[in-house]
């Protein structure tokens, strides 16, 4: 039996998600709508009659039926039955914040006009009462023509009546009669035009005639509801989905109606909005009894401190520092644990399987590949936990309020700040955090520059290069490190500015940011959301990352030369013959060195090694040799692989703990002409390269997922790598000219 579908909708910050969690017992499933990165939250009503299952769908928060973001577009399209894999709602539950009645009713009445069976839940009546708004629910129900249930979703008040209502609707089959209602007193000319369009819509789309009146109103008053020649087809936010092709005669009818209204001096864009608000003001006056509110609300008192000229920025910096530090350091412990566990697993599998290619593929390809995905999980979880808490308390919009001025200098939005900051830890959670940015251009610009912020994976690279190349005195090491971080920030801001001026230009987005009242976070829901989002990362990005890791393993392992194998087998046999039993420590040392030499020789002979040599001409102008080339090739998987690759290339052994001994070996490394390979200038050039180069398969995979196309990750990889090459080239050439 087809489950009864209940759609939850409402403004952002109206408590809709809290209600959804309460109704589904925190057991909702999170996925994505096909083709867009909008979270699709779905769950079953707990306590429903088993014979009449109920599916709940939590739509993204929406201010109106004229969408401004992909989130809002999905919500509108579902309500208009335009999303192929979402059934027509059997019941729409509009959640309304009682303390913010007029603006919430703006959307609620738009939804009621759609003609679906609709119920209104008046949430946060406690907050409204504290603020002096006493709402007569019966009067409101009469005025709106739909049932109204008062509620405090966070305390569970009003949930039972709602459940009961849904259950009774689900168990009584048959069509429900809905009284058509409109909440506009439109000027006569406008109403006449809307009526004519409605009739035309009913004729063209008889299967959704229920929606015709509301659709006609939108077509007439929202210019972006009507597809035009200029409609961008590239992941647009306001275009129409395929099954809404309007016949050209209809489009012409709408356009000429607008022209007629304009000629008559009627503003077709704002008339309906003003008429609705006028009506809502009257309804509010009628149903609300106002008592004088308390002198100052707690939320306003908090805001006086949090957005204070002095305390505001101070609190902000503290919160960000805390968040950044814990993503950086707190995540280190579980990450070390995961690394150790993955190593142990690889070792165990490696020793319990017969040696050979399959063994190698499983341990160094598959297990190491899975490890490289899972290793990000602690950072991602922590970041999502913080973001969830900041969003849930209401601080997130204050952070955007505080930072907007700085970010707007480079053409970005205050909301881009958190993703950029998070990218210091890791670009992956940073890029996933861009979902809070509504404007597509701003979101893309943020995604494109986020990996330029120096992430934690660059730290081992910087560390080993600084140890090997930079003079260890007068604070040079620390200063160099700081310079690299600053260079990344400057690069990110500069590129954002360039992208916003060129590629992602568009009408300058307005900042229309609601500052909702503060509230206590619902920890259970925040944790649940953290896990849902992290799981999505594991599932989608994980598969791509794993695949590419296996490819890179292949490149670093094949082709195998039997001559080389024979040579080393022979030397191993010789060692065995000569060694005493048990071997002395000197003899063990010889064996270790032999193993390292074998690994190094094999890597040099592999495809990766050959690639390193092949790209040498491109690296020569940067002062790099083919050995560094191998490191750059293999570290395309992840930057820190550079360190382990160099260890193999220089026969130090692949352990990451060997940074110090690796640096020693690098210091004594000479070029063919006898000069040192790792001069301060080479080190600096290489670091500049790593500041800007993409060098992270996981980021590519996540950008692919978040932008839903290969176009942007490819563009990003190309621009970052070019930028890295050019800046490294300049560094090296200028440095050489200056005599370093």
């Amino acid at each position, binding site marked *: 039996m087809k489950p009864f579908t209940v759609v939850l909708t409402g403004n952002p910050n109206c408590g809709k998600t809290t209600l959804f969690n309460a109704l589904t017992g925190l057991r909702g499933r999170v996925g994505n709508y096909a083709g867009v990165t909008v979270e699709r939250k779905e769950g079953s009503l707990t306590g429903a009659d088993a014979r009449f299952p109920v599916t709940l769908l939590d739509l993204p928060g929406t*201010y109106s039926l004229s969408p401004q973001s992909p989130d809002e577009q999905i919500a509108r399209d579902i309500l208009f039955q335009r999303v192929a894999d979402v059934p027509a709602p059997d019941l729409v539950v509009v959640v309304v914040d009682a303390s*913010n009645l*007029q603006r919430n009713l*703006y959307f609620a009445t738009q939804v009621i006009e759609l003609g679906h069976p609709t119920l209104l839940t008046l949430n946060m009546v406690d907050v409204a009462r504290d603020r002096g708004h006493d709402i007569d629910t019966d009067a409101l129900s009469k005025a709106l023509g739909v049932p109204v249930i008062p509620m405090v979703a966070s305390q569970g008040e009003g949930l039972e009546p709602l459940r009961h209502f849904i259950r009774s609707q689900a168990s009584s089959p048959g069509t429900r009669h809905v009284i058509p209602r409109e909440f506009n007193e439109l000027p006569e000319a406008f109403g006449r035009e809307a009526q004519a369009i409605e009739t035309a819509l009913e004729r063209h789309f008889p299967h959704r005639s229920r929606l015709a009146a509301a659709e006609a109103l939108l077509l007439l008053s929202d210019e972006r509801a009507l597809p035009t020649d200029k409609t961008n087809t590239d992941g647009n936010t306001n275009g129409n989905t395929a099954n809404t092709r309007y016949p050209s005669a209809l489009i012409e009818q709408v356009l000429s109606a607008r022209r007629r209204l304009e000629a008559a001096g009627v503003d077709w*864009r704002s008339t309906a909005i003003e008429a609705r*608000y006028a009506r809502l003001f009257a309804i509010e006056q009628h149903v609300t009894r106002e008592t004088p509110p308390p002198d100052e609300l707690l939320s306003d008192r908090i805001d006086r401190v949090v*957005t204070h000229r002095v305390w505001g920025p101070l609190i902000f910096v503290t919160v960000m520092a805390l968040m950044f530090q814990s993503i950086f350091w707190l995540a280190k412990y579980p990450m070390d644990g995961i690394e150790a566990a993955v190593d142990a697993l690889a070792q165990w599998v490696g020793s319990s399987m017969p040696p050979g290619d399959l063994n190698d593929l499983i341990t160094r390809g598959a297990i190491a590949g899975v490890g490289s995905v899972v290793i990000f999980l602690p950072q991602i979880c922590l970041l999502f936990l913080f973001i969830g808490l900041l969003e849930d308390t209401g601080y997130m919009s204050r952070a955007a309020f505080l930072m907007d*001025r700085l970010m707007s200098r480079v053409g970005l939005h205050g909301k881009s700040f958190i993703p950029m900051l998070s990218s210091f830890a890791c670009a992956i959670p940073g890029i996933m955090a861009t979902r809070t940015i509504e404007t597509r251009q701003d979101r893309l610009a943020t995604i494109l520059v986020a990996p330029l912020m120096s992430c934690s994976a660059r730290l081992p690279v910087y560390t080993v290069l600084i140890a090997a190349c930079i003079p260890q005195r007068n604070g040079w090491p620390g200063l160099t490190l700081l310079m690299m971080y600053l260079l990344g920030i400057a690069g990110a801001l500069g590129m954002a500015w360039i992208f916003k001026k060129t590629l992602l230009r568009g009408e300058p987005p*307005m900042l229309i940011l609601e500052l*909702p009242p503060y509230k206590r976070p619902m920890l259970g829901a925040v944790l649940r959301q953290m896990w849902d989002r992290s799981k999505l990362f594991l599932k989608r990005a994980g598969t791509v990352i794993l695949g590419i890791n296996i490819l890179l393993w292949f490149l670093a392992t094949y082709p195998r030369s039997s001559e080389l194998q024979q040579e080393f087998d022979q030397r191993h046999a010789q060692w065995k013959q000569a060694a005493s039993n048990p071997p002395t420590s000197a003899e063990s040392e010889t064996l270790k060195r032999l193993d390292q030499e074998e690994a190094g020789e094999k890597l040099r002979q592999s495809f990766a090694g050959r690639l390193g040599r092949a790209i040498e001409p491109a690296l020569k102008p940067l002062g790099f040799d083919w050995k560094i080339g191998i490191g750059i090739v293999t570290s395309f998987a992840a930057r820190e692989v550079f360190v382990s690759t160099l260890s193999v290339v220089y026969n130090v052994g692949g352990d990451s703990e060997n940074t110090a001994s690796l640096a020693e070996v690098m210091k004594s490394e000479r070029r063919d002409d006898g000069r040192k390979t790792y001069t301060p200038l080479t080190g600096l050039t290489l670091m500049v390269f790593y500041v800007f180069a993409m060098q992270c398969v996981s980021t590519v995979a996540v950008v692919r997922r978040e932008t839903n196309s290969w176009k942007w990750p490819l563009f990003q990889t190309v621009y970052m790598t070019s930028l890295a090459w050019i800046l490294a080239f300049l560094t090296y050439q200028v440095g050489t000219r200056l005599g370093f």
Partner: protein
Amino acid sequence: MRPLSSLTPGERAVVARIDIPPEQRGRLLEMGLLPGTPVELVRFAPLGDPVEIKLRNYHLSLRKLEADKIQVH
């Protein structure tokens, strides 16, 4: 008439006219900022921009660039 951004924190006024091009101001109107709406300027952000206003019992933040174009009386 004077721009909304010229109010001092705590000062109230009524929106008279919105001089933002019609094709860009749709969302602003939908948020309830219409001619005739009473507004209160709550504060400016620490860096002077954006500005926080209160209307219809809720708080909204706009850039000064837009607030300059909203005339109040």
